[in-house]
């Protein structure tokens, strides 16, 4: 269990947040770039000194400027997966994973044997002798996870674990990461600027804006009841409960069926759709994409330079359009429209 009160002043940043992450819990720190998310992570890892506050992990005080208590980075039982993974470029995959074990006193042979076990667990033993530059994004992430977990930490920190990947790999690796995160039973804290990553990976979201927490709660609560227009824009993701009705189709409570691009992870799933991914049309679109349904505009809400359109009908969802598109479609409350979304824009994950 992590309990951290973090106060850091760094350049323009004035960070003051309190975080609790329970054992077995995945918490996502979500916010725009420059909000102080990475600084918070670095403070917990001991890479950024606190100006005030206190960091406590499983009853041990790691940092408390008030009393002078301080545990150096290397002695903290914390594994970190860095942004861009930061695999040591001149060492093999195996030596990357063995590094932490050697640093903690294992002999070279023992460390390598144990590291090989970790690579097998993550399905990358075939790449043990490869240099990191030869790995794909997904493989590199698995090595980074294996390296962070090999030292048997009580807390796992992940800084933008998916940011280094391109859009197509991201979809697969996100699902895979969720599965791997589930195998670790300590506390897990991840930092991301991508609400979809946060919603899919975390049990609880903590929204940080300009160094302050503006809202926290379960993804379904935060996305359905955002505390501010800003949070609404940031995490305005449609989350729909569904059951599997086929290998790649899900059925919603209304009975409507949607098709996803990848095989489903289990029988009970949640489907996440970005509001920007939903297209609206006045007439039924030609060549009908599979996920097309008839909807009624229930509400329109202008938010900065975007308009959020709440849709009633078989798929309760919010779409996000430009004001120009809203004008062109002549959308008003009560207007009948056709909504469509591509299968690749539906992210299904196990509930």
């Amino acid at each position, binding site marked *: 269990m992590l309990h951290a009160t973090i106060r850091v002043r760094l350049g323009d940043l004035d960070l003051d947040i309190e975080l609790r992450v329970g054992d077995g819990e995945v918490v996502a720190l979500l916010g725009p770039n420059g909000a102080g998310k990475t600084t918070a992570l*670095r403070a917990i*890892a*001991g*890479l950024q000194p606190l100006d005030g506050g206190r960091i406590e992990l499983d009853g041990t005080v790691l940092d408390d400027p008030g009393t002078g208590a301080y545990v150096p*980075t*290397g*002695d*903290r039982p*914390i*594994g*970190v997966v*860095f942004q861009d993974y*930061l695999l*040591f*470029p*001149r*060492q093999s995959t195996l030596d990357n994973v063995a*590094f*932490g074990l050697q*640093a*903690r006193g294992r002999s070279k042979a023992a460390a390598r044997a144990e590291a090989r076990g970790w690579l097998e667990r993550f399905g990358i033993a075939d790449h043990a002798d490869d240099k990191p530059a030869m790995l794909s994004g997904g493989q590199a992430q698995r090595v980074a996870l294996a*390296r*962070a977990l090999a*030292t048997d930490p009580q807390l796992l920190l992940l800084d933008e674990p998916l940011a280094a990947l391109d859009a197509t790999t991201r979809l697969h690796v996100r699902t895979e990461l969720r599965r791997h995160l589930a195998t670790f039973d300590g506390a897990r804290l991840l930092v991301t600027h991508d609400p979809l990553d946060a919603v899919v990976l975390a049990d609880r979201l903590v929204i940080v804006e300009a160094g302050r927490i503006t809202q926290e709660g379960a993804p379904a609560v935060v996305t359905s009841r955002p505390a501010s227009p800003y949070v609404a824009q940031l995490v305005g993701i449609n989350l729909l409960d569904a059951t599997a009705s086929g290998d790649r189709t899900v059925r919603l409570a209304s009975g409507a069926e949607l098709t996803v691009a990848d095989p489903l992870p289990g029988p009970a799933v949640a489907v996440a759709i970005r509001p920007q991914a939903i297209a609206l049309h006045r007439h039924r679109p030609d060549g009908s994409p599979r996920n097309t349904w008839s909807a009624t505009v229930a509400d329109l809400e202008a938010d900065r330079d975007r308009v959020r359109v709440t849709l009633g009908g078989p798929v309760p969802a919010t779409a996000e359009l430009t004001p120009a598109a809203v004008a062109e479609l002549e959308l008003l409350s009560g207007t009948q429209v056709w909504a469509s979304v591509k299968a690749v824009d539906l992210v299904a994950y196990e509930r």
Partner: protein
Amino acid sequence: MVAIAYVAIPFAALLQRAPWSDLGALVGQPVVTDALRLSITTAFTATGISLVVGIPLAWVLARTQFPGRSVARALITLPMVLPPVVGGAALLFAFGRRGLLGGPVYDSTGFLLPYSIWGVVAANTFVALPFLVLTVESGLRGSDPRYEDAAATLGAGRWMIFRRITVPNAAPSIIAGAVLCWARALGEFGATVTFAGNLQGRTQTVPLAVFLALESDRDAAIALSLVLIAVSLAVLLPLRDRWLAA
């Protein structure tokens, strides 16, 4: 083109004046072999010392913030811009028989740095160290310090991070710096002649021997110069594209 010609013409002139027929005999003279052996050993020793003390200094300059850091960097650059003769004189005042540090050391142990082979090494190190420190420092600045953070989170201590992460990541700049340092040490003249003197077999390096021979035996001077050029090329050519470009 002009630059190439300007560098090439003096070498061509040197080759044109070379006593090719007597070259074997000239190079075999004790004055030549002694000087060559001394030059090579002292240049390598000075490079070794520079690596040991220079890499940690470069790390401190590149990675830490402390008051007076810019003064420290200016100080380490000074031997590069100073006339080497001045450097040699400064070394004498510090480590000479009546020098600031040399005096007490001589009085208590009888050890004297100047006019010995260690004097040559000291003079070489003094002028060549900045080349290593500045090259490695810029290399370290270019390498991502977050790798060192990653190693720290894995439990590595400062020394393990330095040895396993910092040095390998900066390897190209360390090699380039070592080559520049070695080349500067090999060609060193002013500080050596001032601080270590010009004794054949003890402190007379190739550049000193060349200078002396120009007065008496011009052919021997040319032969020595050719030998020095050959040794330099033998070290620089294999490294040139791979490391010096980086």
